[in-house]
């Protein structure tokens, strides 16, 4: 598989690490146990287009949000994850 890193250009799969579903956002401080439970454990088993987190650890160390079809491995978009999912975590 090849991934076009928005910073480095096209690179081979071996430079990247897969994390998983990019959809769940970390709940803010004060969230209930159930909300956090859902964030930690509940994942859709997607057969088709999916938004995923990947880490370009073998390259520029950027976290990326990738839209990938899990059936065909076709990648339709790659963007930097910076800012994605960030919530204010209360003190």
């Amino acid at each position: 598989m090849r991934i076009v890193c928005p910073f480095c250009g096209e690179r081979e799969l071996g430079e990247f690490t897969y994390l998983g579903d990019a959809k769940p956002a970390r709940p803010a401080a004060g969230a209930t146990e159930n909300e956090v439970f859902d964030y930690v454990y509940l994942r859709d088993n997607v057969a088709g287009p999916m938004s995923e987190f990947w880490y370009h650890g073998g390259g520029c160390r950027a976290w990326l949000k990738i839209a990938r079809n899990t059936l065909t491995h076709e990648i339709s978009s790659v963007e930097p994850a910076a800012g994605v999912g960030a919530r204010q975590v209360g003190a």
Partner: protein
Amino acid sequence: MAEFSWIARSPLEHALVVGACGARGTAAGVSLTEIRNFDLIQVMARRGKAAELAKAAETRFGVAAPGTPKAVRVADATLIWSGPDQFLVLCNGGKHAIEPLSQAFAQSGSLSDQSDARALISVSGEKARAILAKLSSLDLHPAAFPAGTAAATSVDHTSVNLWRGNDRPDGQAVFNLLVFATFAESLWHTMLDAAAEYGVDIRHSEELG
């Protein structure tokens, strides 16, 4: 009380043997030169201060810091892109070591000294691309990777910064590899294995190409 000597040792001090290695007969297809005793500073922009950092770099070096995977050569340093909003400053002689640079980028950057964290290996020769093709998944064709191109990438499952410097006087391309120091000896043996069939000429130097 004993007086101590503080002899600096490069990560390749033990493994590197100057001279010829591998296939003999014709001229060595690959030249491997370890560059020793350099200053290397990682400069990362503070959140939201990439533009400010770029300006500070221009003030310091007279050129814009690379914002894309490039290596920029100035009189006394090379600025190597190493990731989004970050670059490495490579030089020698201490002019751009951690302390002076920390002053220069105090407002806009976070700096980390990497002078001892890396070994610097320069690869050139007629078969330079052939040996690098065994190590790197990058396309190093002259059109795809012209002089001045840089990449943060992996070689043999370890992170490296790779850039193409100025060509040698004989026109051969020069590829520079910054590899993590603790991986250097292992990677060096891998490189020698890869290059053996072409014949290798091994040296070390303190001169930055």
